[in-house]
């Protein structure tokens, strides 16, 4: 199963995993997850009195033999687990070596593949939304590419079944990053749009001046089991540009003048750690799984060790 994001070896190992949901699935569609709904499966759930019109096949004849009363056996309905992947596709994700956006798509592909393998429904929500073509025309975007991405975004809204994995990967590959993202708005809208809560994976650098708290709170409040993966470029963790700098924000265009030297590296790293620590504490306070990774981190380390240890999947 060739694709640009994950190696066959990694895919093979990922196939062994299944997303672990702490709560029962609330989806209305059939799947392989236990749910509170009653339906047809092999898992016995309860008895109830027979009423006129019930299917005789589910009558417990053994019980009728002992008690001479008709009881109907009820089984748990197996439903699917909706998995929503919030993928930050803003301009800031295009930085780093390798690019943060590429790294995020690799994680999205892995999560999506695990979910699809478990017959779960996967929804990828790239944000910000694709701007009108007229805005991208000046940047050399062809109508074909634009339409292809538009179609891919549409297709990624709902993917199900392991057979869709290849298409899923292709659609992820078509996505591009650019523009200014509003993380809170994207998460809040994603929470509202979801018909059923499920597992939410947020892939972003969380470098939004407006913060992240309202968005994550909305997801948790909607009942999502939220996993946050913060992706930062190596350059953001340990800058390599020194001297008198005029820094231009890629998304807002804001300018920050700074005189930076090696002697201030430690102070900068303390600032970054403080920022990460605040985000981590916020997530821990709301039962959100939090991961942080440099875009240069080995993918296997994150997927096979950290996510597994945190019981995102198992």
């Amino acid at each position: 199963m060739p694709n640009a994001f994950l190696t066959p070896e990694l895919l093979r190992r990922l196939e062994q995993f299944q997303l672990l949901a702490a709560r029962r699935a609330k989806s209305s569609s059939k799947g392989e997850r236990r749910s509170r709904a009653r339906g047809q499966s092999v898992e016995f759930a309860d008895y109830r009195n027979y009423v006129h019109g019930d299917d005789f096949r589910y009558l417990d004849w053994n019980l009728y033999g002992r008690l001479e009363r008709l009881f109907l056996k009820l089984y748990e309905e197996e439903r699917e687990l909706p998995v929503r992947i919030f993928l930050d596709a803003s301009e800031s994700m295009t930085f780093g070596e390798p690019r943060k956006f590429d790294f995020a798509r690799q994680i999205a592909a892995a999560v999506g593949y695990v979910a699809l393998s478990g017959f779960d429904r996967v929804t990828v929500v790239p944000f910000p939304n694709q701007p009108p073509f007229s805005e991208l025309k000046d940047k050399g975007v062809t109508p074909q590419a634009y339409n292809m991405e538009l179609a891919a975004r549409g297709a990624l809204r709902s993917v199900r079944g392991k057979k869709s994995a290849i298409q899923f990967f292709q659609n992820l590959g078509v996505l591009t990053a650019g523009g200014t993202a509003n993380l809170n708005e994207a998460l809040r809208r994603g929470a509202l749009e979801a018909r059923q809560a499920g597992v939410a994976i947020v892939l972003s650098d969380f470098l939004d001046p407006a913060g992240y708290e309202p968005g994550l709170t909305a997801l948790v409040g909607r009942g999502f089991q939220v996993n946050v993966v913060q992706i930062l470029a190596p350059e953001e963790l340990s800058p390599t540009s020194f001297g008198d700098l005029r820094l231009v924000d890629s998304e807002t265009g804001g300018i920050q003048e700074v005189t930076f030297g090696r002697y201030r590296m430690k102070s900068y790293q303390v600032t970054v750690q403080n920022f990460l620590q605040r985000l981590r504490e916020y997530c821990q306070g709301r039962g959100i799984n939090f991961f942080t990774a440099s875009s240069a981190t080995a993918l296997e380390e994150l997927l096979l060790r950290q996510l597994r240890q945190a019981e995102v999947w198992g």
Partner: protein
Amino acid sequence: MNFLAPFAFLFAASIPVVVVFYLLKRKRVVKLVSSTLLWQKFLSETQASAPFQKLRKNWLLILQIILLIFAVLALSRPYFAAKAKPAELRVVILDTSASMEATDESPSRFEKARAEALKWVDGLAGSDQMVVLQAGANTEVKQSATSEKAALRRALQACVCSDGPTRLVPALRMAESLVRDQRNAEIHLFSDGAVPELSEFENKALPLVYHRVGKSSENLGIIALDVRSNPENAKERAVYVGVANYSTNDQQSELELLLDEKLIETRPITVASNETSPQVFKAQQDHDGVFTVRLTAKDDLAPDNQASIVSLLPKPVKVLLVTKGNRFLERALRAAPNVELATANDLTDTAAGFDFVVLDDVPPTVWPQGNVLAIHVVNTNWFESVTRIEGPGIVDWKTAHPVLRYVSFDNVPVAESLAVKTPNWGVSLLDAPQASLMVAGELGRQRIIWIGFDTLQSLWPYRVSFPMFVANAVDWLNPANAKNEQLIIKPGDPFRLALTHPEKGAVVIRPGGATTTIELDPNANEFVYGDTLKQGTYRVRLSTNEVTFCADLLDSAESNIKPRDELQLGKYTKVTATTMQRTNMELWRTIASIGLVVLMIEWWYYHRRTV
């Protein structure tokens, strides 16, 4: 307000440099980053949110503290006085004689000595005092005792080097009187050591510190100059020149003779090291004028490369011999050159028509007004007491005096003589025990030679020294010669000219052409001009006549510019040139220099680590 180191204001020139540094706009590198969020947080966290923070190891901080330490040290003006004992009074004697003009030190020995003396002024501690004496031809107190450094510095700057000889004795005498009875007093002499005899101070235990200046002694100089009639040809003039070489090598030069600035003769000469070469020029002269001799070779000392002398044409000397008959004396007088001799038995008037009068054992009725050679006659105005001695033994005579030049009294018995106590107007030339038999001197403007014995009562006329004495006496008593002697002076000495009638003023034309007008007191009978520090020919223009005189170094002690390591005070005492450093040597300059280096290191470090 005074400044100890006004040159420090030159550092103000660095202020514009600093301003330029700040005028330079920082060129920032534009860089596109994913987000400035982290940078904003970084800047807000590193900016002071509290007035104090934990002190961290920072090399910039350490460098700035070191810089401050150096600055504070420099401002406190530390010094150490380890190499010289403290003195409460220092008498600085600055030698301003001609030899200090030598250029073996740059720019000259005098400037070097002055700079060294100025350093001692800088090093003067709070209450210590200093006196500045200028020792040239005359000693001048440039600054009396004071602790005020600005005044001392001004005094040293006001010192001027002259072309004259060193007369250190009066300066040392004055310094000695200043340091006498003073505790911790020192005399600091800044000189090259080319000084005359100082034996006067042999046993005075002077607290003298000798600061030697000078390095080498490459000098060829004129040390003697005289002009006379040529003994071989009375129509010609003979110019006698002595050229001495005080260099370590033989020296060659051209010796030029000029009469009234016109070149007459040029003669190449070679003078061996430490030798003197006598040179005689013969020249025709038909009017009074100035002979100038000049050495063309360049050497370390310029003032002794030229000398001038006024040459007046000889006029007949009119002599009146008043005698009862003395053939020896008469023949000796006639033998003297250029003498018009008249004889008489008695003198009844002032003999105004004669240049001088010889009274040979004849007391005059009226004493002459002019110069007199008095033999065995006594004027009671001349001496306090006169005694008679039978067969006096001659014990000493002064051949250094021009009257007794080449004259000897060996084997000259005298039958009897008048003897006098040496008067204060003259010197004794011939001594018997406790009495003087011959006196020469100047009483008022009258030159007198007095001899106590009748020459015919001795064997002197039979000796060869007698006609020599008479010739010398004619020279010395001739008023024209006396006048000639007055026309050559040492630089720095005053020029004196007797005025025959009242003058209102005089114009002095100095060497180089500068003129000075001097107002004279109408009652003055003498013109005195003192500003003769520079050697050369001076012309004094009076209402009726013009007088020319020359100031010449002609001093072998000055021409020998070899710097002396020791000053000889008499036979047994000597003062070695000091290696002593000035006291209270200030260190702030050194410290400030180190501070500047630290500042530059800090600047370099700051820029290195931000790049």
